């Protein structure tokens, strides 16, 4: 069933690319069904483990698939985002776009359920291909496609080298999700940085981020939603299942360097987001900032910070996808993304305004929505690890986030109606359904973060001194 999980979207997507005709409802329908089917398959196959031999020399590598705890939530996020993105596709040529979205989902699913490093590296490169072609065909400039592929492929190659080196050193790459494979030795720092740089490109983190604003701005909104929400998590997921478990000594040794990079990203992204005039670029730079916080959490190795990071990975995916889809709706209606021109959409599109409100509030970390819990728990962990100065920077970036989110949101939604822009109807049912699940999930996780945190994605520490808090229930 695990194999079916990966193959279903890949086959469906490839078939779609080969077919003819541009029936929007048909392809959207197939896409949503396939995405939801992967969700069902993932839940059904949650405890499965499937393996077939692959390489015997120069090291052992297997086609080994299985779903870890963090991977499970990422897969749920991925399937949900893909379904929503497919439903939100609005194009005269939807067939190829839906097909590429499914290919993207399939390759990322493969990444998340790989239990073998070599397989992981393979999918890591494969998932670039659909995005590259979408950028080339539908991006705003071919330059964006090349920039994307050069950065990410370079990262992928580093990952491949590091994997090969790991295999040679350790004898096998079939190591993800199984204990007792930590390695040590003179070469390990090099291998660690191979992995780490690859992951930092993908996330991205300063100074490897410059491909990202262009890519996100250039991609069609549904694809930007999936790439921004889920593909950006591939690197962070790699930190969790590869760097942290296989090279724990290195991550402790280089934690300062990672914390510095994360902190710079955090602030750099936040101030850059303050002055962008392209709505999608605001979200892109905010992503740099928010994911920088997760990098810091990973670098501290503090259990509470890691628990918060796991939650924030999901929360960030939800609000990023919702915002990209929502901004896509705005662009469709007003034919521009420029904050200098957009205003007053709320008067004629109250439902769209409401959707953007919730997504934006989640992004700025409003208490009661999922983003807040992630931030709160991560920064609590950062303080516990003794990095109080980093925590100060983190809370400053929270204030900056409220400023850039409101600038974005109010700029689009509030103010007098812009008479030089077209007036189009409010969200249709389809458009509403394509964004509503993401918003509901944000609300649910904000009220009940226990759902993700208690699932064992990360071991939650008991509180350090006393065993309970607030009101204790037996």
């Amino acid at each position, binding site marked *: 069933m695990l194999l079916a999980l990966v193959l279903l979207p890949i086959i469906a997507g490839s078939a779609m690319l080969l077919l003819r005709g541009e029936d929007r409802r048909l392809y959207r329908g197939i896409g949503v069904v396939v995405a939801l089917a992967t969700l069902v398959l993932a839940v059904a196959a949650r405890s499965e483990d499937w393996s077939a031999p692959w390489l015997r020399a120069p090291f052992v590598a297997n086609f080994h698939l299985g779903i870890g705890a963090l991977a499970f939530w990422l897969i749920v996020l991925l399937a949900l985002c893909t379904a929503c993105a497919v439903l939100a596709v609005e194009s005269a040529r939807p067939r190829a776009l839906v097909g590429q979205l499914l290919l993207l989902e399939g390759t990322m699913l493969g990444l998340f359920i790989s239990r073998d490093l070599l397989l992981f590296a393979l999918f890591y490169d494969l998932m670039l291909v659909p995005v590259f072609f979408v950028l*080339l065909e539908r991006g705003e400039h071919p330059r964006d496609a090349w920039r994307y*592929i050069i950065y990410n492929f370079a990262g992928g190659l580093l990952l491949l080298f590091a994997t090969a080196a790991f295999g040679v050193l350790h004898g096998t790459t079939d190591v993800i999700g199984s204990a007792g494979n930590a390695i040590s030795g003179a070469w390990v720092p090099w291998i660690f940085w191979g992995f780490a740089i690859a992951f930092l490109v993908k996330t991205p983190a300063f100074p490897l981020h410059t491909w990202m604003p262009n890519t996100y701005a250039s991609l069609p909104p549904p694809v930007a939603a999936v790439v921004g929400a889920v593909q950006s998590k591939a690197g962070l997921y790699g930190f969790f299942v590869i760097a942290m478990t296989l090279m724990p000594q290195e991550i402790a040794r280089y934690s300062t360097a990672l914390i510095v990079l994360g902190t710079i990203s955090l602030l750099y992204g936040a101030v850059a987001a*303050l002055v962008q005039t392209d709505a999608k670029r605001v979200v892109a730079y905010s992503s740099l900032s928010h994911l920088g916080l997760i990098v810091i959490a990973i670098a501290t190795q503090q259990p509470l910070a890691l628990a918060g990071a796991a939650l924030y990975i999901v929360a960030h995916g939800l609000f990023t996808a919702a915002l990209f889809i929502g901004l896509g709706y705005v662009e469709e209606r007003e034919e521009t993304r420029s904050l200098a021109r957009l205003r007053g959409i709320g008067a004629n599109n109250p439902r769209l305004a409401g959707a953007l409100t919730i997504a934006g509030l989640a992004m700025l970390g409003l*208490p009661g929505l999922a983003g807040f819990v992630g931030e709160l728990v991560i920064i609590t962990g950062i303080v516990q690890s003794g990095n109080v100065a980093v925590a100060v920077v983190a809370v400053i970036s929270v204030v900056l986030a409220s400023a850039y989110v409101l600038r974005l949101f109010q700029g689009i939604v509030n103010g007098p109606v812009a008479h030089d822009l077209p007036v189009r109807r409010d969200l249709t049912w389809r458009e509403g359904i394509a964004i509503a699940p993401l918003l509901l999930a944000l609300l649910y996780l904000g009220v009940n*973060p226990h759902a993700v945190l208690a699932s064992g994605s990360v071991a939650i520490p008991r509180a350090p001194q006393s065993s309970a808090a607030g*009101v*204790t229930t037996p």
Partner: protein
Amino acid sequence: MANPEHVMGVVGSYPLLIALWLLPLAGAVLCWAFGPQLKRAAGWLATAVAFAAFALTVASWGSGTQSLNGALGADQPLVRWMPGFHLGLLLDPLSLLWACIITGVGALIHLYSIGYMEGDSAFARFFAYMNFFLFAMLTLVLSDNFVGLLIGWGLVGLASYFLIGFWFYKPSAVAAARKAFVINVAGDVGIMFAIFLIVQKTGSIGFGNAFAAADTYGPTLLLAICISLFIGAAAKSAQVPLHTWLPDAMEGPTPVSALIHAATMVTAGVYLIARCAPLWSHDGNAQLLVGTIGGVTALTGAVLGMVQWDIKRILAYSTMSQIGYMIMGVGVGAYEAGVAHFFTHAFFKAQLFLGSGLIIHALANEQDVRRMGGLRKRLPFAFIAMLVGVLAICGIPGLSGSFSKDAVIQGALNHGHPWLYAVGIVTAGMTAYYMFRMLFVTFFGRYRGEIDPSELGIRHPEFAGTAAHADTGGHDSHHAPAWLMNLPVAILIVPSIFAGWLLYGGADSPWHRFFDPQFGVAAPANVPISELTTTLVTLAFVAVGILVAYLRYGTAAARESAVERLRRESVGMWPILANAFYFDVALDALFVKTSEMLGRLVSRVLDPHVVDGTVREAAIAAQGSGALVRSLQTGFVRAYAVFLAVGIACFAAFYAFHGVH
């Protein structure tokens, strides 16, 4: 329950408590979802919800004040929020008092709003926000832990944001809403930081644990926690220098100003410090800091209140000043006095705002007092309402304000802060001046609404709160019966006059008997100046304030020459006062301009030219002439080949180093 040391109150099942907490949320969701269907009924639904919540609060009175084995209040565990962290509700005297004001005064203001918002195109949305505010504020005061408090803290900020920016097509309202929200987020992260520190020390987010450990924090950590909490309190309660959002927040509809920006939300900082009394009582430096900021705010608000022309801004600065008193009270350790001033202020300030709303409503959204005058005969009920409010806030003996304000001033002295005592007395005199100034200019003399604004010294009528506001909300077609707006004001007159008598009787007063279990019985202070003397000295300052106001605006001669006098004053206003001590300019330059400059540096210089430089060259090279096939053949494949060669070289090097096993 398993761990009694964490529990502040008596743990049990309190369905009323949950009901009163969730009811306004249900009302908000209904008004929001079915607004178009409900139409005017949305107002009545929301009002009914508010009154029901008030009834439930009163019904929970017993559980909030019960005392068993020294435990205090009703404790309702709710949800497992995270492993090891639980959220719950707590109803003790302090939260009970706040819940009563929130739901009680809130219900009256809901009723008033049905009349005030009549005819607005977003009538149902307004009531959805109002009910949502009640829910958020109840979350804030009923939580039994810091995270629940912070959730409420953030949500009231959101409700305030929505309601300040309610008329979202007005750019000034949108800007005011954003400013209020961002400053309040700065406060939120202060509280967040306090949570980090408390969790690090105690491993807990519960009030009980945090306070039980108060004497184990050590001076540095305790001060850091108190300062972090106070940043939150200062932002929410408009304390210097984080007060600049409050005057701008008057862009919201007047009932909002009454409920959120006078009676309830802005006093959340007072609640926070009173709630964390065990922390403050352990730290003299924190007390000094908070007391001083409170005093400075009281004085600043009063000075700026003396020179405003917009009736709502006069009241806004007055609110800021009065909250300064409250913060001074709870800051120096006179918790019962500070909380009492919140209690009485909620009535008389809500009444003043609602009274000003009657005027604004009757004058088609005119807010500039220079264009009023002589309204005593035209709006007799509004005059009486405002008069009672003014007398109460000035501290005329027997009215509510006198009891609580004198208690705060005396408290500052009793706790060893003679300077704050003096500030309190001087501010009382200034309060009397600006309040009577407002009264004389608004209600006496001749009506000046027909005079050309420039003759009154109004240079930019479109910005000065004049009739240019008439496009807000379309009030012209209102047909709401007058009693809808008059009745709540009339009801509020009663507590505005009498609420203070709860404090009568010194240590045996009902107020003290109610709060002594919460804050502990104060040790009899070595009082250098008696309470009677304090009251008399304060009254002397108040009398001087009223007299000056009378001489400047109230005498027959002053009324005759009012137009000329107002023009001269407007034109000749000192820039430092006209710019409200330049706080806005300074905050803007320090934070807004700086971060925007950094942002431009990053996105126009660093990102494109420094960080990205080399790779961009590669991208341009790879892109070649732009033809896909050619670039595949030239740039891209070559790059790939180079990488591959480097990789093989690495492997070779590896084997060369390690040899073959």
